[in-house]
């Protein structure tokens, strides 16, 4: 456990050390220090995962806090490994990404807050005292806020940052409420004491769970609390979006799993509600992802989708708990938890490759890109791997977790209860729809960005791929996606241990059913390996057999032989037929200038699709808020006498009130 604290403190102070060095060494030194800190933090986590004994250290704080325990159990260890590995990869990548920004005025604060964010996330997933947890949580939110507004000179970045800050504080408000209720009932801030209170009082537990779900769900990005995600991710630099989307939003999921762990057996309606919200989130996320042409917004909406898929896994697991079906519990939770890992891998890969594209072309609008696979072959192939993985297609990792969740849902149908069965049926078709929509979305994103001909000067001017300092971290991530895809048994073995440690009381039941998924995993793994071998043979065969038989020619234009790059299919038209089917779910904002007169000089067409929640719920609320608050405008007169008057009135009210009440 001491190693862990050494690691945390290394991370906390590394940013300040970096300030001492010249600008060319800053990111390099930071990567080195973060690597040291991560290794120190990861050692105890690996120990816990392989030895099976939990670690904990208790500090005696002042009377307010009580005893503060930092502990690493299997769940924490799993999250520690995700946080350390994924953050380290992003930080190494930032060596290349930040090069053009080294003269920026925000660079020093950026390099301070980056390791602080990592350290605070590590503290969040180990802390077992509610008050300390909230402090770490707040540090995490604030440090990520400063990372988001790196390019604070841009107005939209600042706007997105403030939106993020507001959402995070709404989130923390609900978490404080949940924790405060539990603390009042139990008389202590310790998670262990919460457990007793929650398990003895079921209706109280439901209220607390719902409050905590709103709080943690806002962080994770469940619909309808997702609105900050599609704004904050595009605003942040790519390596920060990668950490935020790949790792930080998972702390919200961590909080939810921790709550399930404290509650034990959830109420069935809580489980139903959770499952429904998860299915809606995944559909909503992928649907809006299809509409987006800003690459990073698209990826941000995909985060919502994947959080939804994780939620479906957890929801199925919760149904298994309520109906005492150990196999469904095991499959649901292990699928959900594995998807946390998988999503952090491929989402980080995609965000980093999006960053590379942005660095080379200075645009995030995919409609202006095209043909980049010629200039940036490595980035293109890595993005392709990430796309296939995020669609949940074999032989990559996304498939394994989705397969486990599907298996859990099929077995969940055995629960002989009308409403549960109906919901699971809907979840199955929902997840299938999400999968195919993801294929649509990523075939669009990949092909518009990397294939065909360049659609603008920006894309045509790219001549060289990014350096190794950027491609190697991405390559490692791509390797992870493949390894988990072809060797899922090992991962499942660890997952089993994590799920067992979450529900120690169900250990015996769970151990009995472990063999079923393990055997299936083996078959799937064998299948995946055979597929890869077969494909390799085919590719080699085609290469050698058909070597001299190829003639190159222009693309067939159906008789028209002056096709140019502006006649290619665009992202909007690719998504068009699908979106036309679902018109009522969007708010379309057109910006059209029609060609006028005989010899039109200019004309343009721009279509933007707004988030329906933002357009019909948030904006009216904000308008009302503004209207309501302007009623009090006159109070702020600006002269000091009237402020003194308010102070006097306030004092009088307090004194009089205390006379009556006291």
């Amino acid at each position: 456990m001491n190693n862990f604290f050494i690691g945390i403190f290394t991370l906390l102070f590394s940013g300040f050390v970096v300030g001492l060095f010249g600008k060319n060494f800053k990111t390099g030194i930071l990567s080195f220090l973060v690597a040291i800190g991560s290794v120190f933090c990861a050692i105890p986590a690996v120990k816990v995962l392989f030895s099976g004994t939990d670690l904990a250290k208790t500090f005696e704080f002042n009377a307010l806090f009580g005893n503060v325990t930092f502990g690493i159990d299997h769940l924490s260890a799993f999250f520690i490994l995700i946080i350390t590995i994924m953050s380290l990869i992003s930080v190494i990548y930032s060596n290349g990404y930040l090069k053009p920004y080294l003269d920026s005025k925000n660079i020093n604060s950026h390099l301070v807050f980056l390791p602080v964010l990592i350290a605070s996330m590590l503290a969040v997933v180990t802390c077992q005292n509610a008050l300390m947890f909230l402090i770490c949580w707040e540090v995490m939110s604030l440090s990520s806020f400063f990372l988001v507004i790196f390019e604070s000179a841009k107005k939209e970045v600042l706007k997105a940052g403030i939106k993020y800050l507001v959402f995070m504080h709404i989130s923390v408000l609900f978490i404080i409420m949940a924790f405060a209720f539990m603390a009042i009932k139990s008389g202590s801030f310790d998670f262990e004491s919460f457990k007793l209170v929650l398990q003895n009082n079921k209706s109280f537990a439901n209220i607390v769970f719902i409050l905590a779900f709103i709080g943690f769900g806002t962080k994770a990005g469940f619909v309808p609390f997702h609105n900050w995600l599609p704004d904050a991710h595009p605003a942040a630099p790519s390596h920060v979006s990668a950490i935020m989307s790949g790792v930080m939003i998972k702390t919200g999921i961590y909080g939810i799993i921790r709550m399930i762990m404290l509650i034990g057996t959830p109420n069935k309606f809580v489980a139903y509600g959770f499952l429904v919200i998860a299915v809606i989130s995944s559909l909503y996320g992928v649907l809006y992802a299809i509409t987006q042409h800003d690459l990073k917004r698209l990826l941000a909406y995909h985060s919502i989708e994947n959080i939804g898929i994780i939620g479906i896994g957890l929801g199925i697991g919760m149904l298994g708990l309520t109906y005492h079906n150990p196999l469904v519990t095991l499959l649901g939770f292990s699928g959900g938890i594995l998807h946390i890992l998988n999503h952090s891998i491929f989402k980080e890969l995609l965000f980093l490759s999006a960053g590379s594209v942005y660095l080379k072309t200075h645009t995030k609008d995919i409609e202006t890109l095209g043909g980049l696979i010629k200039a940036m072959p490595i980035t293109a192939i890595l993005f392709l791997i990430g796309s296939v993985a995020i669609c949940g297609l074999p032989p990559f990792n996304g498939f394994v977790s989705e397969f486990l969740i599907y298996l859990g849902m099929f077995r969940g149908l055995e629960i002989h209860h009308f409403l549960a069965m109906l919901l699971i049926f809907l979840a199955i078709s929902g997840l299938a729809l999400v999968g195919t929509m993801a294929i649509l979305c990523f075939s669009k994103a990949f092909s518009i960005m990397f294939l065909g001909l360049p659609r603008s000067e920006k894309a045509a001017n790219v001549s060289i791929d990014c350096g190794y300092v950027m491609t190697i971290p991405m390559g490692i991530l791509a390797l992870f996606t493949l390894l988990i895809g072809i060797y899922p048994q090992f991962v499942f073995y660890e997952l089993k241990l994590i799920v067992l440690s979450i529900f120690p009381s169900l250990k015996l039941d769970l151990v009995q059913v472990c063999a079923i998924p393990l055997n299936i995993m083996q078959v799937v793994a064998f299948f995946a390996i055979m597929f890869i071998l077969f494909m390799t043979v085919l590719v080699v065969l085609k290469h050698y057999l058909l070597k001299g038989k190829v003639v190159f020619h222009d693309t067939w234009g159906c008789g028209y032989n002056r096709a140019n790059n502006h006649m290619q299919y665009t992202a909007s038209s690719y998504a068009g037929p699908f979106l036309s089917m679902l018109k009522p779910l969007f708010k379309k904002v057109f910006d059209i200038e029609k060609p006028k007169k005989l010899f039109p000089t200019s004309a343009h067409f721009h279509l933007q699709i707004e988030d329906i929640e933002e357009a019909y719920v948030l904006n009216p609320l904000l308008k009302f808020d503004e209207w309501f608050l302007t009623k009090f405008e006159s109070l702020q007169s600006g002269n000091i006498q009237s402020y003194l008057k308010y102070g006097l009135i306030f004092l009088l009210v307090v004194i009089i009130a205390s006379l009556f009440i006291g």
Partner: protein
Amino acid sequence: MILKMLNLIVLLFVPFLMMGLIKKTKAFWAGRKGVSIFQPMYDFVKLIKKDFVISKTTSVVFNIAPLFAIATVLFASMFVPLATGKALIIIPAGVIVFAYTLGLGKFMSLVAAMDTGSSFEGMGASREACFTSIVEPAFFLLIASVMVLTGNYTFGSLSHIIESAGSYGILITIFAVIVLFIMMLVEGSRVPVDDPATHLELTMIHEVMILDNSGCDLALYSWANGIKMLLISSLIACMVIPHNLPMLLHILCYLLVMGIISIAVGTVESGMARIRMSHVFEFIFVMSSLSLVVMSLVMAKMFGG
């Protein structure tokens, strides 16, 4: 072992015969003599032997996509009960591996179509992606309903519907056959969703996606498409052939069902025109609604007593 080899032979060659039979049926309805039933196979051999022309715009993706198309259908076929009524790999939820493996092939063929930079091919890819996304949920719903009804989580459950649900089972089988038949028309890009024989690129879906493929690539694509149709037809066969028949009889029945399905496809193609593009959705939603009907029947059976 012999049976497995037999399955392989069926998998590789019957798709050509089915294509030939469809063509023959269409010729019959049109009052022509038609080409030989083996013609698709000759075409295949002819295409394999040819050189091919590749667009200068394309990249490595375009080159490997046809290989993915054929490899994914071959690997997906391992989970489907073919002529002998038994799949090569029998695992619970094999349907997921089946569908997602086909999804991989689809993904690659979509991006390969976009790789040429031709707007015609982009149009085809866009439509194909769109239609698939409606087909898949309905298919999953159907299979999940059947699985829970029979308590068997492999594709084998399809052959136990009637025995585990009695009179409900007959209704469910009828609806399920219609659902799978529509799915086969969509996935195999046949009339009324798509018209493989038209010469107008604007109205095509799958055929326009492979406009720039030639020679060996084109041959692989059309073969993969045929195998995909065979796989979905095999699921239909699995439902309608009683599962306890003697092996030889089972194989004969299977071939018979394949023949009937091909004739049915040919008859549908002769009998009706391609639906207008904006109405294709409605046709595919018939499939979704029938899946919902199957689901309700299953739930009625389980809770209604």
